[in-house]
């Protein structure tokens, strides 16, 4: 993993987000924010037979949160929900390909948190925010 957050691909996804915008008649629309820094993500999904047929997002925030959303969007098109259910921190960090400290972790994981909360309900988030004792 790269030590420097601001790799060209992150800035590219931030400046040119993929699957950005609205779907027609989405089955799921879910919105979440990062209260400490104000990042916002809204995720829209069309789902058929427990598979994501189409996904898009809108939002604003830092490059990490928006690039994470954009990269995740590319990845989840056509994916069965069952596969996404197991996703956590690692999958997102693999996509981003950079080392992320504890503070920016919340930014990086906000899109996945929003996705999982939208599909399985808010209590279903067991990622970075989980009750690890």
């Amino acid at each position, binding site marked *: 993993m790269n030590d420097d957050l601001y790799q060209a691909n992150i800035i590219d996804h931030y400046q040119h987000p993929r699957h950005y915008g609205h779907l027609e008649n989405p089955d799921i629309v879910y919105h979440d*924010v990062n*209260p*400490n*820094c104000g990042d916002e993500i809204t995720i829209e999904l069309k789902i058929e037979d427990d598979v994501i047929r189409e996904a898009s997002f809108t939002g604003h925030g830092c490059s990490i949160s928006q690039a994470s959303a954009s990269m995740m969007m590319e990845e989840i098109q056509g994916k069965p929900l069952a596969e996404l259910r197991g996703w956590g921190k690692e999958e997102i960090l693999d996509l981003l390909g950079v080392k992320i*400290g*504890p*503070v*920016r972790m919340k930014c990086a994981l906000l899109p996945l948190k929003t996705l999982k909360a939208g599909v399985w309900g808010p209590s279903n988030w067991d990622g970075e*925010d989980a*009750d690890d*004792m």
Partner: protein
Amino acid sequence: MSEKRSELVKQLNVEEIRRDFPVLSRKVHGVPLIYLDNAATSQKPMAVIEAMNLFYQRENSNVHRGIHTLSEEATADYEAARKKIARFINAKSWREIIYTRNATESINLVAYSWGLANLHPGDEVLITEMEHHANIVPWQLIAERTGATLRYVPITLQGYLDLDKLNGLLTEKTKMFAFTAMSNVLGTIPPVKMLVEKAHAVGALALVDGAQAVSHMPVDVQAWNCDFLAFSAHKMCGPTGIGALYAKRQLLEEMPPFLSGGDMIRSVWMDHATWNDVPHKFEAGTPAIAEAIGFGAAIDYLQKIGGMEAIHRYEQEIIAAAMTALQEVEGLRMIGPPPEDRGGLISFALDGIHPHDAAAILDQDGIAVRAGHHCAQPSHDRLGIEATDRASFYFYNLPEEIDMLVRSLQRAQAIFHHP
């Protein structure tokens, strides 16, 4: 005593432990300090003082909202301390720990947030006659505001809760049963688990005032199954200015906020706001950051020297010895139950000597005890005593300090009775 003494002291390594506490080598009035006011506040080991110094000297910064390195480090340490506290009382999650200023604020938080939202005319709040004012006055004020009624479990003359009366007092009207896990006057340790069960059986919540218990014995909130637990860092080797409220997560999710401002919000609009996740929802403004870190260091320290089980055992032996020794003092009346049912403190009255006068004479001999009603007027009223002196021990007290106490009390007797 002397043989047993050395065994006892070795058990916890008290001689060595004492070196961790700078204040214990201090003199007052030219004689070595004998600090027997631990129920009011404990002394602090260097490990705690240094943890806070390190924070201020290396990473001092505000928490949660910062992206820069100092803020990241401060936040990590501040939250790590919360996890230590959660594990220390065996909470299910760090989210169940809210930082407050002290046990008093913890109880007020429940009274205001839960109480104002859930108490109605006809409802009852049950407390006991052995409560500290911190677990009385907030309920008086909230009862007045909501129209609820405050009731008391009486205490017996031996200083126990009068459990025979409990069944009549705990009814479906009871919405909250709030009681101490260790009386700061009588020393009494009530059967917490059973009291919680009885509260739950009538559908009431149970709040445990752990200000004394958490500092002096092992506490397991899951075993007790209490809904709330209030305690303070300063009584357990931690700094002033920080305490905690444990609450079951589900309750915290449902309760409205108490103090409000920065850090506890999710979003603020002109006409309303939404709340941050628990426990942050209950922590408004810049918190006591260095103090939280000091609290964590205090818990590390208590565990390092042997843990709460060993500390409790040590104190029970000390208190048994103290109660035996105090019988030598003429005209001294002790209140509260026998050693096996109490924590490491003993309140007493001396014939013809006001507790303040006794405390002042002890002070001349370097001995610090507390005199007064110890913020527990109702229990004094019930026992028909205006005030008492209280000697309260901690793991760093030595058995020979008991002998000094006895001798100094005898000197007080001489001053007043053969002036």
